[in-house]
């Protein structure tokens, strides 16, 4: 089970992500600079959190158009798995790999805190080892996490079960429609989420609840 993390100018959660992937998979993780045009032969491609290009224009907008992203789109089309966390989620929507958009938090504040997440769909490679309906604590840190999609798209996402995670217990930190915290594409091989499961994988983090997601994807991709 091989994974790669793509690094953009302004990424700052890339090292956390690499550590989490290494610790949980027990395998080295490839890193790919955004100007590359090809991906190494990996099962999972991760777009990490941060402030690529200083969030200029729109969060994730410029990174989503960087040279490596064509290879990421091609990999996703071929059914390879792609995970975007925080800024990575913003890039996936900007790149058109996931529907909708992530707008400025309704409060206008940057939020850096813990929220409660409900696992909605366990029928994906990313979530199959998680407990459906379980509510777990997870950190968020973002300014633009307010998920928006037009009514028709939203109905489609909900109808297809594309909502992987929802903010629970009234902890929606950003005004996201339907409390959406993470969604997949229709095929289920691309997941974007604002919260940071990579920051909840060892005791020093204060919890291990983020591990289940990585364990799911590694187990499923190793079996594939």
């Amino acid at each position, binding site marked *: 089970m091989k994974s790669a993390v793509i690094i953009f100018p302004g990424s700052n959660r890339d090292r956390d992500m690499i550590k989490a992937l290494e610790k949980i998979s027990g395998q080295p993780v490839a890193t790919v600079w955004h100007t590359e045009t090809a991906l190494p032969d990996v099962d999972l491609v991760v777009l990490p959190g941060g402030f690529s290009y200083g969030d200029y224009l729109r969060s994730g*907008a410029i990174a989503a158009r960087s040279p490596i992203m064509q290879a990421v789109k091609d990999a996703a089309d071929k059914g390879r798995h792609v995970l975007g966390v925080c800024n990575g989620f913003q890039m996936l929507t900007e790149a058109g790999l996931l529907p909708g958009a992530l707008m400025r938090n309704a409060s*206008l504040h940057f939020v850096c805190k813990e929220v409660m997440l409900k696992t909605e769909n366990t029928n994906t490679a990313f979530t199959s080892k998680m407990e459906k309906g379980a509510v777990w604590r997870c950190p968020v840190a973002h300014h633009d996490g307010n998920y928006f999609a037009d009514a028709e798209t939203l109905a489609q996402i909900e109808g297809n079960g594309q909502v992987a995670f929802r903010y629970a217990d009234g902890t929606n930190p950003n005004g996201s429609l339907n409390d959406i915290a993470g969604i997949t594409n229709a095929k289920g091989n691309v997941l974007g989420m604002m919260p940071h499961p990579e920051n909840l994988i060892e005791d020093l983090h204060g919890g291990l609840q983020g591990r289940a997601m990585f364990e799911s994807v590694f187990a499923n991709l190793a079996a594939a």
Partner: protein
Amino acid sequence: MKARVTVTLKNGVLDPQGKAIEGSLGSLGFDGVEGVRQGKVFDIVLTDRDAEAAKAEIEAMCEKLLANTVIENYAIELL
């Protein structure tokens, strides 16, 4: 030649920044402000070319980068 692109949020898309500005205008005593929507302006300098070609080029720029057409509309003006 110069062009101006104005990018605005589509109707129905919540604009918390516009709302905050509206609130601030009210607190400054500007009565009768019924709404504020915030947008962006891009002033673009192009090498000289035919107006139709320029518009087509800028439209492609808007579709590919300047606007996120999920949430934004754009208008192009040649100056």
